[in-house]
């Protein structure tokens, strides 16, 4: 009853959220969820969500099939050449294969 699918966890600056959601849809993902980060650190330094300056981080979680993940990772490969952030991929098991 469980089938294996790919899960992407994409960490990006808030300004990219909309573009990346559009990309996910275009890549073949049928759904995704977005969460807001609180603080963090990376190659571009530390940040903390404050409401005063523009800093922040969104985590987009998207579960989909192999092809969708492939397409998204290719796009993100280009994206991360110039913008901050990271993406991780892993296998997860889900129910209702037709939904992903």
């Amino acid at each position, binding site marked *: 009853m469980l089938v294996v699918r790919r899960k992407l966890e994409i960490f990006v*600056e808030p*300004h990219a959220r*909309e*573009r990346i959601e*559009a*990309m996910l849809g275009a890549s073949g993902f049928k759904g995704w969820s977005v969460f807001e980060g609180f603080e963090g650190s990376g190659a*571009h*330094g*530390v940040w*903390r*969500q*404050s*409401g*005063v*300056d*523009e800093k922040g981080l969104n985590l987009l979680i998207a579960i989909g099939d192999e092809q969708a993940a492939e397409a998204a990772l290719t*796009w993100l490969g*280009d*994206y991360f050449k*110039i*913008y*901050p952030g990271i993406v991780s991929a892993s296998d997860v098991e889900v129910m209702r294969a037709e939904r992903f």
Partner: protein
Amino acid sequence: MLADLIAGAGANLIAPAVLFFALGAFAGWLKSDLNVPDQVAKTLALYLMLCIGFKGGVEAAAAGLSAQMLSAGGLGLAMSFAAPFLAFSVLRWISKLDRATAAATAAHYGSVSVVTFAAASEYLRAIGVEFGGYMIAVLALMETPAILAALVIVGGRAQSGDLGVKPHLWREVLLNGAALMLVGSFIIGVLTGERGMTRLEVFVGPLFQGALCLFLLEMGLVVSRRMAAAPRLNLGLVGFALIWPVLGALTALACARFLGLSLGDATLMAVLAASASYIAAPAAMRMALPQADAGIYVSLSLGVTFPFNLLVGIPLYYALARIVWG
């Protein structure tokens, strides 16, 4: 005269809002866990826009169209668009900043800081100096041109290429929430006029001071957190962040005098020229010039210039204006 200046500066320094900024900066420096939650800080920013815009709109409606208003608007537009070109050259000359970072920084200094403007107008109100409500429209006009100028400067060099950033960028630049709130509230102020004001008097009046205190507290925290993390600010850059505002203010005062603006309007014009954006410009630059170093431009505008203007600049520009206006 000098005594006046010192008294003015002293009065400014013990204004509650300025002291709360200092409290925030102090707490941040001590790494206290004091903080204003981000959603509330965002709402306070929105609320400040609402108040500033609405009050300006009501006053502008009462005063009607005037030549002063058009002069001020034109001057603001021109300065905001021209300043980045000059700032870019200066920055490239005095520092080793790459083109993108220099252009992004220049955009910040051509654009304006609404909170600095708010603090300045509170200062003028406290000492009884009048100014036109249309100065809020000038403020709004000055936010964007500098950002466009920076994009012109960098030209084809922006890396953001074909990731579909263009339409999002234009929306960010022209329709960012803060700008829309300011302009929208201004128009609502114009439309509802005195009748609207009687309904919102308490909300946009006595409350404003308190909200400004809370917001400046959080700004103090953010500033000291950021400065603790800021890496490579050399003397040249810090010097720029302190001297550019004063020169900008002087230029603005000279032009304002030439155009026949009033003392209050001219002071605010100087404050606008001296202030550097820390919301609209960074957001646009992160999108459009991701190769530029945000550690530099935000640290300078938010970490150096903003406190300088808040603590020293505002009373200084007013004192200078009084000298010029005689």
